């Protein structure tokens, strides 16, 4: 059971968190001018890196989304931060 640190609440067990998205993956805008292939790419293709990964997670108990940098092999969490433009 991993321990993640919510930037708003502090360290909690992983059962309180859900994965939300890959960080830095932008919704193509304007969507209607995006090709079918690019839209499918946005929807279905994720990097799933082996090693360091930046991800958006949500602390379900407080409802806040945040960015977590963690290593998918060692499970080490190196950084947590609020979404860009927000402060904890």
């Amino acid at each position, binding site marked *: *059971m991993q321990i993640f640190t919510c930037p708003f609440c502090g360290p909690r067990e992983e059962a309180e968190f*859900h994965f939300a998205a890959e960080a830095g993956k932008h919704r193509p805008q*304007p969507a209607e001018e*995006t090709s*079918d292939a690019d839209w499918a790419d946005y929807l279905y293709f994720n990097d799933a890196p082996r090693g360091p990964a930046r991800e958006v997670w*949500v602390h379900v108990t407080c*409802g806040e*989304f945040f960015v977590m940098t963690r290593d998918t092999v060692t499970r080490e969490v190196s950084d947590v931060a609020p*979404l860009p433009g927000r402060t904890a």
Partner: protein
Amino acid sequence: MTGWRHDNAGSCIDRDRPVSFTFDGAELAGFTGDTLASALLASGVRVLGRSFKYHRPRGLWGMGGEEPNAIFDITEDGVTTPNIRATTEPLREGMALRSVNTAPDAARDRAGALDMLSRFLPAGFYYKTFMTPGWMRWEPMIRRMAGLGRLDPGHRPPADTPQTNGRCDLLVIGAGPAGLAAARAAARAGREVWLVDEADEIGGSLRWRGGEIDGGDWREFARDTRHAVSAAGGRVLTGTTLWGAFDHGLFAAWERRTGAPDRHWRIRARDTVLAAGAIERPLWFANNDLPGIMSAEAALHYLALHGAVAGRRILLATGNDASYPVAAALAGAGCTVTLADARATTPDPPEGVTVLKDARITRARGRPSVMAAAVGGRRIEADTILVSGGYTPSVHLHCQAGGKLDWNAKADSLVPRPDTSPLHVAGAANGSFGLARALEEGHAAGGGTGPAPQVAAGDWTLGAMRPDPALPGRQWVDPQNDVTLKDVRIAAQEGYRSVEHLKRYTTLGMATDQGRSANFAGLAAMAALTGRSIPETGTTTYRPPFSPVPLGVIAGPRRGDLFNAPRRLSLEALHRAQGAEFREYGGWLRPAAYGRGEEAEHAQAEARAARDTVGIYDASPLGKIEVIGPGAADLLDYCGYVRLSTLEPGRARYGFMLNETGIVHDDGVVFRLAADRFIVSASSSHATSVRMMLEEARQDIFDPRQSYIHDVTAGFVTLTVTGPAARGLLRAAGIPEAVLDDATMPHMSVTETTWNGHALRVARVSFTGDRSYELTVAARHGAALHAALDAARAEVDGRWIGMEAVMILRAEKGFILVGKDTDGLTMPHDLGWTGPRDKRTDEYLGRRALFTPEANRDDRRQLVGLEIAGDTPLPTGAHLVPPEGARRSLGFVTSSYFSPTLDRPVALALLEGGRARIGQEVGVFHMGETALARVCPACALDPKWERLHA
């Protein structure tokens, strides 16, 4: 019958407290302090069970979790627990032991004849032979013969194991010499130490090997350690198996307690020392699986702790110094001991022990148990053969935590590679054998300063012992699963050379000892057969649990009703008082119908009453997600399929929430109470996920300071009144008249008023197609509302209706349940809701995906209704097929009920190109039969929607 009880040896048993028990029906006796294994050994019972495949007789091998043979079904107080390991279970008065894999008992097993067929049953035999005509045909027969113990279907162990979290500075796993030294050093430095050991007492191998530490008896050292740990605020957990190492330093431990339920620990430690010791390896020679062949270390263990002696004429075959004290102790106990050492250079013979140098055992003889052995071509009479093939460090937890292994030639074993796991490994678990090195490493691992505890004893040396595939006769590698060296050779020949493949092909190491007795030999043999070194051959993966743990311990109270506990209505007691039978709907426990007996009949009567007069149902689980603030309308426009910013305050609108792939995630009504205040009435099972989707958009796409989302579902009670007499009922209950006026409260409107001195929200929405009112009050006023409606319902001949009736009412109208009448491919236009897709020009969640080639296919599955002849509703889930020609699935029945109002069955279905098929016939395939149905619009009742205003 060769084991016996020594007159005075045995530090753990209480000779004043005898205990009687039975084994396969025979009355036997032991003492308090015995394990099942020691009591059986002292009683002279040799054949304790049968092997899995050939049903060969099996006797006691070890002293702990490595025991592959002595496994019993144990009946106590009328309850049978299967597959208990005799070496770790304390003896209690009246226990009835039954051997496994045997019929009628271990000594006279009928299937023993299978052993004569063994040359026809090599590795892979079952896989290859029983594929024709199909494994399923053979499986029941094979399963009856295999499979260890028998489950007692009446046995429901209590779900009473507390789950307790623990924290400490240093967790020390194993309380042998290395663990004691580590714990003492750390505790003396003021650290909070938890010292955990599987045995009931601390000391590890010191308990049977003894020893002097710092000039005193080891027991003083152990006592001193225990005091130091307690003084520093730590704890000593004995009888506790640390069974798993998990992510981020979480350890799980199973504490066995007497007089209280066992306890399951979740321990997080700042640092961890693994001092789990090592397990003795067997030796490999012909018939090395005979009862009476035992681990040398185990023999010393039983002699020292229980006074149980393995035999009288003992041959001890070894290749290391650690066996010499064993031989000395047995000779001292009165046994005739011959020690056959495979090495040319040996220590001095202990007193009374005959030592043969350069002597290898090649065969054991005897039936059903040991009578003699062949050593270097010479016959040696012996009733017991003790063996030691070296030691395998217990590295399991290091590997579970991600650690790697290195080959250590001096220890002749794979040892933890430093710094590859967060655990500090010390002592025999690190391949550092002998008391002095264990103390030294433990002391260092505990952060000890100054000299380590001192001992006089010297280092051990050991010679590498390996299986010799060239030796004639069957040599067992895995005694429980009957894997022989020949099977390893077959696996190598057939290309299963990776240890993971070897394991799966031969079942090597898959027995209940998890390979403790078998894996090293299998690995060494495969290395020899393929010309590789042992580190090149590799090891199998170590996974939790370290040793078998009852599932009930891990589950704790999360069983039965508490496994996935449903949410409860705040008015549940009132519904029960009216005879409601409850069932789970979308994670909530709700009334299915009112009254005992046939639920379906009650549901029919309730549905008819709701159409004729009025029905009342508890709709509290409906999501109530408040979206508040100046940005609320924009946020909801983006998150919804239907625009909501154009909704007037006081009005309600039905819509969908899609996910980014355009699939319908939920449907429901949104109320606008004020310009900046909405309530999203998500369906009960989707309220949580809808809230998270709203939150994600709010925080990621919009300015989060402009809106706020608040799920208040649990804070309110909602009772829905539906039917032509709904207004009459509300009037009788004293609901304000203004609410009942169709001019101020038309269909799809909402208002906040007061009733009975408290806030009441009334919404005119309908899930039944009839005039309906949803009445919502704060949960604490729910009972008052319930009482008022209940008193008023008599005047209009209304009744409470359960969810089964509601399901009928909504299906008659073609109203869907997302997830029942839709699946993971359903888009809103498949349900007939094409408006926003055609007309909206602003961006919204899921919009882009509604315009892909896939979304535009004209053979998409669309919602339709089905009409059939006769009175029997279609089976839900039945596939729709072309009425003639080749059969293929065109979709399936999603909802199906008998409608009491229409007096015929109604059904909803998802059907390929469904709307274009309206009026046509379609086949309904079920249980091999195809019936015919006519495709019709989803709405079967009141298609002109006149009842809404009745």
